[in-house]
């Protein structure tokens, strides 16, 4: 892929929402995973997506990012409707939308530089990878935007050698490198030590500071509450509430979600 297309996309002026869903439904066989979802993500906000296990959070962002096709509904990117027959992860990448999944964003046995570029390698016209160039860019990103200096990690390290926080750092750093307008994070802090969680939250703030949007799925309410501009609550496939964190304390938010559970 040529590197310019992602940057050009950023320059596109005058859109309000980076992504908007309208009436999205998703069935897995008879399981109704998403029920008539309509929501919008603004161009420079952090939206926290919360809800119980199995509420449909991961499914929602997979539909949003081209991994899964919705059963029904419309998707708008930068206020323009996308043709769902064409929508794919690759197209989402081209539209500057990046996703960081729990622990499924990086391949364990592969070196970091390959993880950085896989899916959009710098190649010649026969498909051969420009290894030198990929390594050099990966190294710059590693040092500069991710800040892995002097921790014994190089672009040749395999992912398996990294700690959980470092993995999320690499995955988020990769997303930022591609000048994405929207970075989607699916429970990036699961199974991380407290110090590592701090790093991830710093990464999330960096996304906002650099003028991008972020959808952040998180189990720990204190964490989302701390960084999100807006919270969307999902319950059994439906959006049941939108909450501004400054209007509700973490304790009240917890109560609210517990009451939702009881209502089941």
């Amino acid at each position, binding site marked *: 892929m040529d590197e310019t297309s992602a940057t050009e996309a950023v320059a596109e002026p005058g859109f309000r929402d980076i992504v908007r869903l309208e009436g999205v439904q998703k069935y897995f066989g008879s399981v109704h995973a998403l029920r008539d979802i309509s929501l919008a993500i603004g161009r420079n906000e952090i939206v926290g997506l919360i809800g119980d296990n199995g509420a449909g959070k991961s499914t929602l962002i997979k539909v949003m990012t081209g991994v899964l096709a919705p059963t029904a509904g419309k998707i708008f990117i930068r206020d323009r409707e996308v043709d769902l027959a064409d929508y794919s992860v690759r197209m989402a990448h081209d539209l500057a939308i990046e*996703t960081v999944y729990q622990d*499924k964003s990086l*391949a364990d*046995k592969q070196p970091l530089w390959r993880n950085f570029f*896989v899916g*959009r390698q710098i190649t010649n016209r026969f*498909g051969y*990878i420009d290894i030198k160039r990929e390594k050099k860019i990966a190294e710059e990103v590693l040092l500069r935007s991710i800040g892995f200096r002097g921790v014994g990690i190089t672009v040749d390290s395999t992912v398996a050698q990294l700690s959980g926080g470092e993995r999320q750092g690499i995955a988020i750093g990769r997303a930022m490198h591609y000048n994405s307008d929207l970075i989607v994070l699916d429970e990036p802090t699961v199974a991380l030590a407290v110090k590592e969680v701090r790093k991830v939250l710093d990464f999330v703030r960096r996304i906002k500071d650099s003028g991008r949007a972020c959808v952040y799925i998180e189990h720990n309410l204190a964490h989302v509450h701390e960084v999100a501009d807006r919270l969307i609550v999902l319950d059994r496939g439906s959006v049941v509430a939108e909450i501004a964190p400054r209007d509700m304390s973490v304790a009240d938010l917890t109560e609210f979600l517990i009451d939702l559970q009881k209502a089941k």
Partner: protein
Amino acid sequence: MATGLIRRIEGLPIILVFACILGLFMFTAPGVFLSPFIYTTFLSTLPPLILLALGLTFVIGAGEIDLSFPAIIAFSGFVFALLFKEYQLGWIAVVAALAAGLLVGFVNGLLVAKVGIPSFIATLGTQFFWAGMATVLSGGKSYALRGAEESSVWQVLVGRIDFGPNAPIWLNQISLQAVWTALIAFFLWTILTRHRFGEHILFIGDSNEVSRVVGIDVDREKIRLFTLMGGLAGLAAIFLTLENKNFFGNQGQGYLLTAIASVLIGGTSIFGGRATIIGTIFGCFIIGMLEAGLVASGLTGAWVRTVQGLIFLIAIVFYLYVEEPQRRAAFLARLGFSAKFGRAKAAE
């Protein structure tokens, strides 16, 4: 650290093992292993095994398996022998046999990627089907390709290079299939290590899910993968049939275990995600050399499979230990701390 060195030089452990076994045979059977002819013989007999193992390196590296290639050796070999001998079609027979291999591989790919059948089962099925087809169509007959060496097909594909009357005899015995196989091996090495397709294959072997998420078209790459394997098996069938100047229905049988063993001895991971062409080639040399070396050293042929099997197992355990620290830990946990392991598992 030892692990680091092993990683840096592709296939280093297996190259050392190869050197040790070679040294051993030079000692136990000097008459055979210190003369050049055993090596020129290898160059004419090993190419089919190497071609199969090259394809399997990609397949196993992608976390899949192909058990159907012995049937492709039979089926493509039959297509080739029939068209070459009965219909005198020459190069068209070559093209048809290759196409047959590619087609069988393509069908395997569709079954695995589109229908979603695990490759172990899918290719077990197609193995029976195509081997059966070869037997039915050939009526169990074998084809002797007498006089084949007059044809341009034979001369170009499996002929000997003529270095002139003054060259040493062994030099004039170097077979062309070795040259073609070396070129293909080099080409596939560049694909695996520096081409987008090779990278995709290793990511797929690492994790199908990660591969989808990063935008790899997993289904398409798997179809390509099995098609490649089929094409290589088709070419192996042509080389084998031409070199033997004979086709018979179960000529592929001996390759199932030796080809898979060569790949795994070479250091390609049984769990996928890591693969080495150089390792595979040395794995093939070891497997081929054992056969000749054990017999030349005075052991009966019955020992050959036993020793091959032993080396195969030692290699697997070795790689597991060196290259899969997490699995090693899990294995130790299962042995020593099974109660603790069970609890950790339940809590997930």
